[in-house]
């Protein structure tokens, strides 16, 4: 009985410790899973990693395994904006399109190298915080479906995602 008592206490202590061991942040600060799912076209798995005391983090949203469509939102705080921001922009292959009305500044492009090569990128900043949005989806590059879009007609939905992220960073 005494041993069982200790066992119970140990189990209780473990149960208490479990939440503390879990990632500090389970919810993406800049976009919820429902919105990411709405963008990618179905229910998504969400993961938040690399959370820093500054509130920087990376959110990964993944549509069902069969589709392969993913959305990644990475936010970093720059110590020296003027010097560091061009480095982020360098992830673009040529042909980056400047986006009006997203953060302080933003561009849309296709990733030029690395694992995300060919993915759609939107890179921008709000003050000293840079956001890099990586979209991998089979519909990238298709023309917009809506006839009434007035801004950059290349990828309005992606811009909407970027706007959500930048809006949360203001």
């Amino acid at each position, binding site marked *: 009985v005494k041993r069982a008592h200790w066992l119970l206490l140990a189990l209780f202590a473990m149960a208490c410790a479990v939440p503390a061991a879990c990632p500090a942040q389970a919810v993406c600060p800049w976009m*919820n899973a429902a919105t990411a799912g709405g963008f990618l076209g179905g229910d998504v798995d969400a993961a938040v990693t690399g959370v820093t005391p500054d509130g920087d983090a990376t959110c990964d949203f993944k549509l069902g395994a069969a589709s392969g469509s993913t959305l990644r939102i990475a936010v970093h705080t720059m110590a020296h904006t003027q010097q560091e921001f061009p480095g982020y922009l360098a992830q673009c292959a040529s042909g980056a399109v400047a986006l*009006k009305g997203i953060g302080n500044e933003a561009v849309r492009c296709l990733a030029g190298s690395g694992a995300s090569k060919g993915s759609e990128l939107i890179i921008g900043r709000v003050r000293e915080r840079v956001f890099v949005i990586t979209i991998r989806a089979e519909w990238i590059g298709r023309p917009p479906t809506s006839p009434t879009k007035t801004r950059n007609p290349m990828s309005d939905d992606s811009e909407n995602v970027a706007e959500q992220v930048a809006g*949360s960073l203001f």
Partner: protein
Amino acid sequence: MQQKDHCTKSKAERILRIAQDSIVVRAGYSLLVVTLSVASVIAFLPKTKIQAHSDETATQQKLVDQDTARKQYSEHVAKSYNFAFGPGNISLPGNGAVVGNTFLQPDTFPTADYCGKCHKEAYHQWRQSLHSNSFRTPFYRTSVNILMRTKGIEFARHCDSCHNPVAVLGGGLTQASVVDRGFDQDGLTCTTCHSVQKVDSTNGNGSYVMGVPAVMVDEKGTRIPGMVPDAEILAHLDRHSKAVMQPLYRTPEFCSACHKANLPNPLNGYKFIRAFTAYDEWQNSKFSQRNPLTFYQADFTSCQGCHMKRSAAGLAEPGSKNGTFASHRWAAGNTAVPFYYGFDEQLAKTIEFLKSGNYLNVDLFAIRKANDDHMIAPLGSTAFDLKAGETIQVMTVIQNKNIGHSLIPEVRDLYEGWVEFSATDSTGKVIYHSGFIKADGKLDERAHSFTNRPVDTTGGFVDNHKVWTIHSVAYDNTVQAGRSTLIRYEFQIPADAKGTISITAKVNYRHLRQSYLNNIFGDDHPAYPIVELASRTRTLNIGDNPVTKPEPNDNADWMRWNNLGISYLDQLQYSEAIDAFSHVVKLRPDYADGYTNIGLTNIEWEKYESARGGLEKALELAPNNARALYYLALVERRAGHSEAEVADLQKVIAQYPQSRDARRELGISYYQQRRPQDAMEQFEALQAIDPDDLAAHYNLALLYRRMGLKDKAKEQSAMFVTKKVDPGAPTYSLDFLRKHPEISIESVPWHVHTNMPHTENGEIDTSAAKAVAGGTR
């Protein structure tokens, strides 16, 4: 016999058979005829009768489907929703409400893209407007994000009841939201405004009642939820119109749902504070024709009359009537949003709007020389001389002439409207400059600006529109509709000045103040537009100045004096006000309001008997003049002439049933006459016009209690307590003013802008001396 019997029988049988056959045939024939007749009747019945049944069935089915889907959605959202402000309450601290009072799926709102397929011009205008960008802009997000981060997202329901109703009613404003926010970029989409079924009150904070969006009604007028095929709309345009248009949308009360805001206790944990009241300002203006006490009169003009002016549609627009379409740009003062998004057309239209309409009048009215009480006025109509080396005070009157609300309205802690005054000599050298933009883009701290300074409990300025921390307002230099303000600029003409001195006063506007733009973007943002709303320049000769011709936009001299009088009145300078109004009646002896103004000033000065003469003279000229009657009633009250007082006020209300002032005063009169029922009626009518009136709350609390209506009395009493000014709040303002001498001067109704060092006990005020250096270029 048998044979005969047989024959008879056979014959009878035959006859019977024939008869039977005949009956069958006839019956058959008849049946056929009837069938064919019925068929032919049915065939020629109007088709709608048949369709009615199927329509009704289809509508019922859609309603059932929508209800079922909504119930499921609502239950799903409710599981994780933070009902912080009471079970079942989805929008507090905002006032947004929805038919059915449960969460409404965001996708029940047909998208703007859907509407834009046919309404191309409306879509084009709306996309660039403030309404479509009501949520997503950095200018809004910066403030609301602070609220979410510091107090919690649930508090943002207060702001988003107007800025993002789809999110609030959809249950998106909660921790761990399960709502897809893809709709955010459309802000107030077409079907938010066009689904509002009624305005619950004129309390604001989103006091609308949203219906389940519908773009069609069935033939019985039942709203059919959701989208329908285009062909169906095109086949029944009248039913489309019934679903999306209501007479309510054309009323100012519709706008009041959001263009009026308060800070309720659940938001600030303090007390009710009225934030802004564009609707009330309009109602008190001459354009509403509901207020007998305005200084000037005008034709009725609603909010939509100015902000939704009709013009030719450039694109296809089925909503056009006679070739014109009511603007869905809602052009007003916001240049920041179109500038940020690159909506050049909207920016141009906004600037055009701000400069049009003869909204403001700038009058370089008079000059006063140092150590001389004589006022040279009105400039242009009076000859005078000027000498080099003289110190002069230029008395500038800014009239809010044709704006239906205050200058500047609403969020005046973020907006920046100010007077830029300059004096230059004949070589172009600036002698004096006030209201300039500094190198860092910020406005000269000593500018006369039409802004305010809300403060918190530390006496600090409430930056970033953190309205939930506001406890007091240190100053508010707004100019209400129809009123004027006098601004004094003092400077010394250089001793060596020759030729002419040019003086210019401009009213400038920037959306938004530089320090807020810096908070949003950091310091490295482009310069946001500054728009000159109105200006006036006069050239003064060193030497003799003859009378000159007025410019086309100049007011007539009687009106210039009148505006000066109004300014003096608002600056509590009663003797000077009476002098100015006396000039008015001298120039316009037929102008009843001139005499009323003298009476009104005497009342403000508490010289009630002196007021009588002016008011009676006004009534002699205009026997039923409501404005004069109203003020005379106040004089009669003071004199103890209760019956005359009531009679005058009744006449005012007969002409202006929505006059809040007359209702309030008549309520008080009845109360004093011990006529509780009559008093109650007046205060209830007043409350229907202005739900915040303190006198109504206070008196109704007393009256209801006496009538035994304890619950209603308690309710009124509670509202009085929360709405009345916290007597401790002004101390926060004093803290702020002590720390900010430049604003402290602005908070005094009567003040002078100068580059002359102030002296006190013979010592030079160093802060003023600094201003000399910074203020003169």
